[in-house]
Each structure stands twice: as structure tokens, then as C-alpha cells.
């Protein structure tokens, strides 16, 4: 193809000029809304970290709407006779019109995404109360730009085939969703026909259902998340390659079809009735599949068929502006039978695929990740799925202890033993990876984690080995200031970033560390009492903050009636008594005001006074006579002095070790 002939700058300039107002609004809407959303997150009391899904919230909607609207603005002239006469008579070939508009749309997408990128980078620098990593912004820019362009190529291809805007919507949806929907229904998620994999270990067999990480295009992945509840990986290279390749294919196909398009077709849905009926039938594919899954009772089927017929007639009214009743009924019957045939064929093909049997010696390694742990992502929780255990004994142990979802659903109510919901990755000797969601005995899970933690070979692969360049630390639901974060980072660095790897932490551990690495946000809790130095930094910071709130804050702290508790630390353990006071006495407020600069000795008995106003407020102090006197005088609900705590709970204390 001759690129100089395919692209006409003057035409593009004029085409953009004619809709400059609308296009300006369109290009600005995504960066503006994203910026507003980031400002809102920054002001939020609860959000300290901007996650990928949160950051791209506007983009997720924009990905479907923006490309469609751009395609209609730039090339939608084909839907009106007078504009077709005007534009097509100009000395510019149809291929050039299509390709120039295609490039124009991509430029508008790039412009919108670059503006979003710039505004987000500014937000990440200016807005200090949230953690918005540059890596996340750049990753989102890459993924969303490719996704937008891909969707645009699909809408443009749909436009060449359609006679009006509504038909274009339908055809775009079919191009984006039909093939992955059918594939996903039968094969990937196995929602229609699940396929067992038998793990044959020495002495028995466990059955799992393979869960493939969807690597479809982003527009389908998002819909599938709602439709199937399946997870997807946001930064998925395979998915991006697919989208890039399909964009080229759709662009080429679109250019050819646009050149051959019957330009006189600008009233009805399609130039031919065959196409109209085919597309209408394809839109009914999900209905037929879902109806089959939902039930087989006679009344139910009759209702579904009536509803489908109503849809069938309405479709003609809306998209084709006319209904040919004498053809509608027989074609409807044929359509339903054909789609039912497709469904049955899929089931038949699926049933003929033999169950897979895997024995221990075929397995190169198994990785296990707790799904509930990496709660900041929806990416299969596979943050530690890189750590492959290759000891055969441990592999056998895992294989013999996994329970698939069905087992759990059938037995959870009668089986009270503790189960961990995990993702496992089985790497076969052939190089293939199999993923599955399974339940595993809690004790076995602990054993696996212990095995990884104590084995040098595996701990070297552990997720703590992230790149800590993009890091944030929060304390009591607020991000620490940069200077403090840097100091803490230096301490953590000295400690080789030893962070707590478990979600069930002692109550004294309330500091979280966020790392954006490997295209994902990772979260771990770090224990406040890693060492004295760390404690000193944090306690000084929190006491200063408490002082500021008490002195300058606009909250009426004396009237706080709940959520004020005192925790005592004795013998290396924090003991929370959940002791509430009805309101803060002026004496204790005065105490906090007077002692906020005291240096807390970590090795002496400590008291943490915790309140909740609009945010968490914490004050640390050492136990002394003055404080004891004040606390004794307060109307605590079951307050015990540290000495009493020691006496009462001496046996419990050792069970909650300090990290």
C-alpha cells in the first residue's frame, strides 16, 4: 500500500475542524474526570493507595464509548445520503478517507491518553495524601491506549458494514465479544462444560478444575469479569499483542470493505437482508446459551422463547425500521434451532475432550498463593506464584491436599475444618502452566509457607524481592510524609525489606507498605515494632499529628463517645483491651498535649491511646504515675492497668509473638 496515497492531511485537518468543539470536549473528558477522581481519592479518609482498577475507572467506560463516538464523528457521514454525496464526490479515494480517519481517530485517542498521563503525573506529584505510582500511570497508559485503539478499529470495521448508528453498535459488540464469548463459554472458564484434571499422586487422586487466566482482549476481559466473575491480568502482554495484531487486521479489512461498501445503504441496517438476519441471530447467541444453562423446564422454555420472539420483532423495529411479519416467524424458528445446534455441538465437542491426568513425575513445580492475601489486586492473587516448589515430597503433599471448588461448596457447611482458598500454579515438565482455584487444609498451607520461608532456595524468589523504587508507607490509614517515608525506607532497606507476609497480624502492626512493581501493586503489612528506631519515628510522627488535631483540628474531640481505646504493651506484646470510654476527659487531652514530644522508650511499658474522629488518631506514651492516675480516674469499661493485664493474661502473651 502506498502510504502517501492512503493518508491525506488536508482532509484530516478539515474533518477535525468541522467537529472541533465536540472533539475537544471528548478529548478532555477522560483526563478531566480522571483528575477529579484522583482529587477525590486524595481527599478520601480511607483511600491511601490508588489501585489499577480505581485509576482506570473512567477509562474502562471510555474504552467502549470514546472510540465509538470518534468513529461516528469522523466517518459517520456514510449514514446520511447528502453527506455521502458531498464527501464521496470529493477528489479523494475511499481508501484514503477510511485510512485517514483511522489515523485521525488514533491521534485523538493518543491525545486523550497523553493528557490523562500528564494530568495523572501532576496529580501523583501534587497530591500527597495518596500513593499513585508513576509505574501504574505508565502501565495504564500503555494498556489503555492499545485497548482504545483496538476498540476503535472494531468500531470502524463495524461502521463499514452498517447502515445506521444502532446497527454499528450491534456489529461492534459482535466483533468484540462473539468469538471470545463462545470460546470462554466452552473452553476457558468452562462455565458450560467444566473439565476435570486428575492429579495422580502416590496413593490417590485429587481432582481440580483448570482456571485459565483470560488473555482475551481488554474489552472482553472487562465484560467477562462481570459476566463470569473471572479475573484477568491488567498488564497482560499476550492480550496486548492480540489487540495490536487484531487492530492491524481490522484496519486492513475495514479499508477493503469501505472501498467496496454500497454507499447507497444509509437507511436500513444492512444492504442485504441476509446480513440483517445473520447479525440478528448472532445477537441471540448469548440468550440461547444462558437459557440452556438456566433450566430445561417446559414452562420456562416457553417463556424464554416468547421473550426471544419479542426481542426478535423489536430488533427489526429499532434497527431496520420495518418488520416483515410473514418472514419473521419462520426465520425465528430456524434461527433458534440453528443456535441451539451450535450450543449442542459445543457441548458435544467439549464432552469428547478426555479428562487430563497428571502424575507427579510430569510436574516440574507447584506454586501456591493465598487469594485473600494480595487484596489490592484482582489478578488471581498470584503474587507468589513465581515461587515454584520442585521438591517431589512437597508436590505430593500439595496434590494430596487440594480440594476443588465443588467439593468445598458441597461440604463446607458440614465440614468445619479451616480451609485456605488459594490459587495453585502447576508447571508441567512440558513447560505448560495450569492454574486452578482450590481449597487447601489450613495446616498444610502453613506448612507450605513455612517451607518456603525457611528454605533459602525459595526465599530468594519471595515477593519481598521487589523493586522498591516506587514505594509508599501508610500508617493508620494515612500516607506518611515523604521525609518520613524515606527514613523508614532506609531502615527497611537495612532490614532487607523484611516485611510481614501474613494478613493475620498482631494488633500493634498497623503500618502498611505499598510497592508498585512488575506491573502490579503489592501490599504487605510491616510490624511497627520491627525495631526501636522504627517505633520511635512512627510514635513521634503520630504523637505530633495527634497534637495538631487536638490543638488545631476542627473536631470536637471531647464529645467523641466511642472508639477510644487503650492498648498496653508489656513483655513484648501488645494487649488490646477494647476498653471504651464515653468521652475524652480534659485531663487526658491535656496530658497528650503536654507529652506529645516525650521520647517513648520502647523497652519500657507503653500505652497506645487510640481514637477515631474523622480519621484514626493514635498517641503513644510510656506508662507513668501521672498517666495511671488519669486512666484510673476515667470511667473505663473494664480498663486494666498494664500490671493487671500481665497478671490476667500471662499465659496468652506468648501466643502472639512480636514480629
Amino acid at each position, binding site marked *: 500500500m502506498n502510504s502517501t*496515497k492512503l493518508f491525506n492531511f*488536508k*482532509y484530516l*485537518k*478539515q474533518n477535525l475542524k*468541522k467537529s472541533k*468543539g465536540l472533539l475537544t470536549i471528548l478529548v478532555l473528558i477522560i483526563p478531566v474526570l480522571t483528575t477529579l477522581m484522583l482529587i477525590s481519592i486524595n481527599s478520601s479518609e480511607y483511600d491511601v493507595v490508588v489501585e489499577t482498577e480505581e485509576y482506570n475507572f473512567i477509562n474502562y467506560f471510555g474504552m467502549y464509548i470514546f472510540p465509538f463516538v470518534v468513529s461516528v464523528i469522523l466517518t459517520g457521514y456514510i449514514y*446520511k*445520503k*447528502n*453527506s*455521502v*454525496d*458531498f464527501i*464521496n*464526490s*470529493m*477528489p*479523494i*479515494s*475511499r*481508501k*484514503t478517507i477510511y485510512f485517514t480517519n483511522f489515523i485521525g481517530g488514533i491521534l485523538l485517542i493518543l491525545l486523550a491518553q497523553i493528557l490523562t498521563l500528564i494530568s495523572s503525573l501532576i496529580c501523583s506529584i501534587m497530591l500527597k495524601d495518596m500513593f499513585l505510582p508513576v509505574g501504574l500511570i505508565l502501565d495504564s497508559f500503555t494498556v489503555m491506549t492499545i485497548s482504545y485503539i483496538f476498540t476503535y478499529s472494531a468500531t470502524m470495521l463495524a461502521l463499514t458494514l452498517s447502515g445506521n448508528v444502532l446497527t454499528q453498535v450491534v456489529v461492534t459488540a459482535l466483533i468484540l465479544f462473539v468469538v471470545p464469548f463462545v470460546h470462554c463459554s466452552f473452553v476457558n472458564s468452562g462455565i458450560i462444560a467444566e473439565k476435570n484434571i486428575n492429579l495422580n499422586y502416590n496413593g490417590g487422586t485429587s481432582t481440580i478444575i483448570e482456571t485459565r487466566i483470560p488473555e482475551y482482549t481488554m474489552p472482553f476481559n472487562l465484560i467477562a469479569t462481570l459476566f463470569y466473575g473471572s479475573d484477568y491480568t491488567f498488564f497482560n502482554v499476550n492480550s496486548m499483542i492480540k489487540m495490536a495484531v487484531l487492530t492491524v487486521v481490522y484496519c486492513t479489512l475495514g479499508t477493503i470493505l469501505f*472501498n*467496496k461498501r*454500497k*454507499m*447507497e445503504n444509509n437507511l436500513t441496517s444492512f444492504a*442485504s437482508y441476509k446480513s440483517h438476519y445473520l447479525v440478528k441471530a448472532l445477537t441471540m447467541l448469548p440468550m440461547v446459551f444462558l437459557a440452556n444453562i438456566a433450566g430445561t423446564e417446559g414452562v420456562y422454555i416457553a417463556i424464554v422463547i416468547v421473550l426471544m420472539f419479542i426481542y426478535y420483532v423489536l430488533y427489526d423495529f429499532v434497527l431496520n425500521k420495518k418488520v416483515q411479519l410473514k418472514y419473521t416467524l419462520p426465520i425465528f424458528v430456524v434461527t433458534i434451532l440453528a443456535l441451539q445446534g451450535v450450543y449442542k455441538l459445543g457441548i458435544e465437542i467439549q464432552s469428547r475432550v478426555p479428562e487430563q491426568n497428571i502424575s507427579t513425575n510430569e510436574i516440574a513445580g507447584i506454586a501456591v498463593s493465598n487469594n485473600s492475601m494480595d487484596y489490592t489486586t484482582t489478578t488471581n492473587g498470584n503474587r507468589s506464584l513465581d515461587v515454584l516448589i520442585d521438591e517431589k515430597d512437597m508436590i505430593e503433599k500439595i496434590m494430596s491436599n487440594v480440594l476443588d471448588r465443588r467439593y468445598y461448596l458441597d461440604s463446607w457447611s458440614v465440614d468445619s475444618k479451616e480451609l485456605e482458598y488459594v490459587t495453585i500454579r502447576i508447571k508441567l515438565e512440558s513447560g505448560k502452566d495450569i492454574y486452578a482455584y482450590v481449597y487447601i487444609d489450613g495446616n498444610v498451607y502453613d506448612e507450605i509457607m513455612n517451607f518456603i520461608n525457611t528454605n533459602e532456595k525459595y526465599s530468594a524468589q519471595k515477593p519481598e524481592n521487589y523493586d522498591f523504587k516506587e514505594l509508599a508507607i501508610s500508617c493508620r490509614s494515612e500516607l506518611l510524609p515523604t521525609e518520613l517515608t524515606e527514613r523508614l525506607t532506609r531502615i527497611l532497606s537495612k532490614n532487607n525489606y523484611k516485611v510481614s507476609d501474613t494478613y493475620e497480624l498482631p494488633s500493634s502492626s498497623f503500618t502498611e507498605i505499598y510497592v508498585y512493581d512488575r506491573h502490579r501493586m503489592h501490599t504487605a503489612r510491616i510490624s511497627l515494632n520491627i525495631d526501636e528506631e522504627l517505633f520511635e519515628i512512627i510514635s513521634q510522627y503520630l504523637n505530633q499529628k495527634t497534637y495538631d488535631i487536638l490543638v488545631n483540628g476542627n473536631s470536637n474531640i471531647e464529645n467523641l463517645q466511642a472508639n477510644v481505646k487503650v492498648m498496653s504493651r508489656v513483655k513484648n506484646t501488645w494487649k488490646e483491651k477494647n476498653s471504651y470510654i464515653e468521652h475524652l476527659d480534659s485531663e487526658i487531652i491535656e496530658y497528650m498535649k503536654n507529652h506529645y514530644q516525650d521520647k517513648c522508650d520502647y523497652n519500657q511499658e507503653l500505652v497506645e491511646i487510640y481514637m477515631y474522629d474523622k480519621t484514626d488518631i493514635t498517641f503513644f506514651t510510656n506508662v507513668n504515675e501521672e498517666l495511671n492516675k488519669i486512666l484510673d480516674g476515667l470511667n473505663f469499661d473494664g480498663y486494666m492497668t498494664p500490671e493487671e493485664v500481665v497478671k490476667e493474661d500471662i499465659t496468652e502473651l506468648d501466643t502472639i509473638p512480636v514480629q
Partner: protein
Amino acid sequence: MIKISNLNKSYGKHKVLENLNCNIKTNSIYGLIGANGAGKSTLLRIIADVIRKDSGAVLIDDREVEDNEKVKQKVAFLPDDLYFFPGYTMLDMAKFYQDMYKKFDLDYFKELATMLKLDVNAKVETFSKGMKRQVSLVCTLATNAEYMLFDETFDGLDPVIRNLMKKIIAKQMESKCTTIIMTSHNLRELEDICDNLGLLYKGGILFESDIDTLKTNMFKVQISLKEEFDKDTFKDLEVLSFSKTGSVAKIIIKGERENCEKLLQAKDPVILDFLPLTLEEVFIYEMEVLGYEFNQVV
């Protein structure tokens, strides 16, 4: 020259053009007449490459027009149903044409706009229907394209502007060697401007001729002879129509005027008057010869 051969076009099952053959000479104004739905607009849209033919060939200067930017540079099309970009002024529209057509003459555009008293800086959407047509005409003429296709050109124009436009178009044809095809369902609208006329009927050119030949080769005669006479008396002439009231007959004769006059004088007439024929009358009689009734065709 525009050469159209065996052109076919259908909209679904409805055949609009069927084996249409037509040659349009360079530097002439070709009038295409036909009833509504005869296929006039379809033919122009195919020549302008707005829509695609089903089969046949449309050659402009011996080159296929379809998807050929170089050939399309030579063609400007003014459709029946006008289109302007929303919010554009007349000057904005001209600049669009200027970006599209290499030979677009902005000075000529302004000159024509001034002549027609059109404000080039006013938004086109504020103009009346007739003014919008003038805007399109001015833009199209300023492209200086070698071939101009005007569909229902004078629709919505008042008689004064209509005559002015005809003069401008005729001048354009003469001074810039432009070939113009104009369509109308009204023959009278085209007779004083066209060099050639084609009658489109049921997807094909039923009849075409240059107007001079049409007008000079057919005439109406009012005649009375000393003796009794009837149609057979004029067997030596090509009589298209004969009617007699009393002793005076009205005859439509086709042929060279000199020869016919000589033959009629030889019959020693008492009265012999040659009366002028309108183009519509010429068409009516030509259609009758072909076995059609004019009112059914146009």
C-alpha cells in the same frame, strides 16, 4: 469526454440503470431529463464515484473514474440534496473545497459571491434554501473542474437568479472549456442552456440529440391547398403529425427545411406558414415516433 457503456445499477432487486450507453462530448452542456425515479441522480452519482456501478464502464477522458483521485480532480458534483458542515461559513466551505481541489480559485469564488450578493462570512445554515443552492453552485464553479455534474440545479432559485446562474454556467463552459451535465425533470428549464439533451427512461437513454439538430430538423407547418388534400398528399415528406381543421392543416415535418419548403411550394399552397416549435413539442413528436407518450416518459 465521458463515455458510458453498458452501465447497470440496481438497488436491491430494483434495477435503476440497465445497459445504459451514452457519450458526452467535451466542452458542452448536456441536459439529462427524465421522470422522477428514472435514474438521473443515480447516473450522476456513479459518474462522480459517489456510489459504485454493478457492471459496465464509466470512462472520463478514457480513464475509469472509480477510486481514481486524478480523474476525480476533474469532476465536481453538485447533488440535489445539499450538505454543509455544521457551523461553517461560506468561506469555510470554500476553504474545504480549496483543500480538496487543486485548481480551486478563491478569487473567482469571491467574485461570484459578490455578484450574487452572498456574504461569505455568514454561516451557511442561516441562509435560505435558494441561497444555499447558490453557495453550492459558487463553490462547485470555483473548483474549475473540467467536468461539472449538476443535479436538479435550479431547484429553489428565483427566476432572476436562475437566469443569472445560467449565464454564469454558460460562460464557464465557454471560457474554461468545461463539460457540464445537468439534470432536470423539467424540459423547459434546460432548453435555453443545453447543447445536447438525453432522455432517460427505464434505466436507459431513450433518446438523445443536440438541440440545434432537433430544432432545425423539425418544424410545424400551417398549410392550405386549392384542392382537397389529406395526409397522403404529403407522402414525399416525413410527416410526424397531421391535423386538419376546415381547409387548413397543421403538419409536423421532420427533415431539412430547404428541401421541405421546396416540396411544399411545389404543391402550390394557398397558405404556407412555418411556425416555431418548442423543445417540448419536438420531444413530444419524437417520442410519438418511438411509440411512447411524452407525458409517460417525463
